């Protein structure tokens, strides 16, 4: 169910939750959780099921329990909006989790930095680690391999009998990899890959490489 990937002599595990585990650094990379989005919508009168919000944290817990990382790095859009009650649940989750937490801030992360710092979460605009460049927006820099989020990548598959399907995916080019959105109340943006790109789709708890090698 997990797909192993070898990039520049480092080992990465693509997990069907949408997270990536970086073995050498014992680091879990997660993009676009959009916590607080459900509460935000509810605050403005759209009755999105509350369970959807709980499930996000449950999924975070399950994924980090599985890998037992030393560091969890969120690649932006961790919290969708202004402060709301989902933040309290997140605070409890941070207390519970053993790992160190880092946030690369994204366009939706408008919560003041000090609130994160109060939870011992370090906030960066970008981070370079052993030739890997971690950002929210996909950013190409010569000589570095970029991990990012923001796009919520998805792809469209076609088959005989004119079947078609849209799936969330990890989207890899020569020097970058875009993670799918981790949160469950997020959409997908359908990309059309070129021949050089590698695409790892998430299908019913499996990560499957769907691009030709």
């Amino acid at each position, binding site marked *: 169910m997990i797909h192993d990937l070898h990039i520049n002599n480092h080992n990465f595990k693509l997990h069907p939750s949408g997270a990536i585990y970086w073995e050498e650094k014992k680091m879990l990379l997660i993009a676009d959780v959009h916590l607080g989005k459900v509460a935000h*919508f509810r605050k403005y009168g759209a009755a999105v099921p509350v369970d959807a919000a709980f499930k996000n944290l449950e999924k975070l817990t399950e994924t980090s329990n599985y890998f037992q990382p030393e560091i969890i790095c969120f690649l932006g859009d961790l919290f969708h909006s202004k402060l709301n009650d989902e933040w309290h649940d997140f605070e409890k989750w941070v207390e519970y989790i053993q790992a160190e937490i880092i946030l690369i801030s994204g366009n939706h992360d408008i919560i003041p930095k000090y609130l994160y710092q109060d939870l011992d979460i370090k906030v960066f605009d970008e981070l370079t680690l052993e030739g890997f460049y971690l950002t929210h927006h996909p950013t190409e820099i010569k000589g570095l391999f970029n991990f990012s989020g923001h796009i919520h990548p998805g792809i469209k*598959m*076609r088959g*005989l009998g004119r079947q078609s399907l849209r799936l969330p995916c990890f989207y890899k080019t020569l020097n970058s990899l875009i993670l799918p959105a981790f949160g469950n109340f997020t959409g997908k943006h359908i990309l059309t890959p070129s021949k050089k790109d590698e*695409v790892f789709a998430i299908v019913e708890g499996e990560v499957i490489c769907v691009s030709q090698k």
Partner: protein
Amino acid sequence: MKKTKDSGSNQWQGLVDEEIASLCSQWFKSKGWNPFPFQQKTWKAFLDGKHGLLNAPTGSGKTYALWVPIVLQYLKNNPEYKTKHTKGIKAIWITPLRALSVEIQQAAQHFADDLETGLTVGIRTGDTSQSERAKQKRQMPDLLITTPESLMLLLASKGYEKTFKTLTAIVVDEWHELLGSKRGVQMELALSRLKTVSSEIRIWGISATIGNLEEAMDVLLGTDSRLRENSVLVKANQKSKIEVRSIIPKKMETFPWRGHLGLHLLEEIIPIIKASRTTLIFTNTRGQCEIWFQKILEKHPEFAGEIAMHHGSIGKDTRLWVEQAIRNESLTAVVATSSLDLGVDFAPVETVIQIGGPKGVAKFLQRAGRSNHRPGEPSVIYFLPTHALELLEASALKRAVKDEVVEDRIPYLLSFDVLIQHLVTLAVSNGFFPKEIFPEIKSTFCFQEITEDQWNWCLNFITIGSQSLQAYDEYQKVKVTPEGLFKVESRQIAMMHRLSIGTIVSDSMMLVKYVSGGFIGTIEEWFISKMKPGDTFVFAGRTLELVRIRQMQAQVRKSSKRTANIVSFMGGRLPLSSQMSKILREEMQSARLPVGATVAPKRKTPEIEALSHIFERQERESIVPNESEFLIETFKTREGFHSLFYPFEGRFVHEAMSSLLAYRISLLSPITFSLAYNDYGFELLSDQFLDIQTILDNNLFSEEYLYDDLQKSLNSTELARRKFRDIAVISGMVFQGYPNKAIKTKHLQSNSQLLFDVFRDYEADNLLYLQAYRETFEHQLEEGRLRRALERINSQKTIWKQCEKATPFSFPIITDRLREKLSSEKLADRIKRMTLQLMK
């Protein structure tokens, strides 16, 4: 209205006192009119205090049938009307189309002024200016002409019960148009409130002929027996003569077997256009409308400036300009969609051309009726087929017109989305006590079956956003005061709600504007999203270059580049009605050559005659089934294994039947299908061979477990998801943003698809989510009709033809690009056999 020689009859006697009677009589005489019996019947019924439904076509004098007695009632109640005007609104006139309001206003004001009644007539629609609205707020006109949405907005403003207390009548014009839609439900709910607020109110509807007029009246009046017993159905009984002329291709052999544009026959309509004063060319979709307009100009530049286009996505100003131009005869032809079906009479229109099958008799009649209002002479409508088999439809239409077959309009039941909208509306204005409102809701036709549980669910939904209280929840919509009043307190929620009443229900519409300012129209977001700045496209008859996209606005400038990229719209294809399907099946029989016969069958129309080579080929490669046969064809092409089924029941039934059958087959062994359908039949396409004998042996067309199987097969298709789009918008789950305002709403925009998934995963018992399925069954799949079709198939003899290649019947289906899919294979297994779509 009929001209008269004798006008001395005593038609006013007994209605009103003599003085008023003679005034009216004189007025009609001065116009040279003699009131129709249906008008007199309506006047009497109204003045007797009755409610009712008037069945009369457009242009028959229906406005006077109801406006006259409203005025008379006022004069009766206010004998000193000439010196003393009694303030307060007397009547509301509901019209589904804004375009109609001006016409009604002029007619009504005219009569009121001539009789020196001092009564005023005002209009309130989305087009009414802010200052005019404010003025109306202070002092309502005596007659207010408005739309269902604008009426809802009035109910959303404080103190509406005082405003409407003086009402004596509400007239719902074109009720047949509203009936089969959620706007109809909106009307039912508004009426339920007005019945309480205005004790003197009389409820009247005006409807064109539909199959279920009695039911239409029940829906209008609700289940309250006091109203029903005191009501009357008045029929105008005016027959309209209609002549249908098909445009038959000269070279039938080269006429295509598929397609929906019909451009091959473009040259055929040119002489028709040139021979008449003004021609209306009706297309079935907005996309088709754009293309036809473009192509006519391209082939015949001499028409430049003389032809125009009219469809629902074009800016209002342009539409009004076109309508005016038709009236003053400055246009030779107008290419239009259903946006011109209704409404104002355009006297100069001499000819109507219908491009492609109109799919329903009522729609066709309505369009035909747009031409030539000279009494005694028939309205002429030309029918232009877009593919060969559509000629069969033309032939069937002729019969339907002759035999006066008309469709039913099916009212919506238990539309919780509209109920939630209504409840929030009441909470925004005065607030409401549930125990007072529940009986009103229960008295509507739509909600007569609502249970206490469902009612409480709706109340919970608007107050706590779920069915049990959540810890630390900030859900905000309707608050309950300690006295138990349900009220919206947040100004922002109230404003968002008002804005969402009457927003056009569609996934995501984008405004198209010139960079320099100036609104052109709206188009669907998916179309624009495929384009980059600098790309050009044709919209509203203009070639435009996309400059940039800013906050749901596509900013464009004029371009002189040539482009083939004509704006297109999703959906819009109508299914064949069940009445039309039946006639179509019968018509096909006349095309069959009986076994062994050499003489042509008796009832051959020119259309059927023209199709003979196609039927011959169909006979050669397969068969043309008779009444007791059900045809199945199979063949293989490069795309896979095709299996075709021909129930001839219309698109929607085929859509359902194909899912059902695909699902049942998939239970036998893992398989994936792609489904296609048209009005004649459907196709299951697979990458595996499908043995039809297995279907027959397992009795897969059985009516047993129909509902269950459909429900399961629908889980795999996306029908309910599409229905949910409207539901999410109407119930206020999806906020579409502030029109023309640069306030950022991006953080609140979600799409209904996402919501649908979230409900499916976390709240599958949500009534709105379930409603999406119910609507799919009742309105899209037409479960009842499907059941009858299956019964018919089971009584027929199945003929399985294994063909060499695509047959004439199959061709339009297998080339259809809009497809559904159904699979019983594991997703991961399917993926392994699929390929990624790469950049070209």
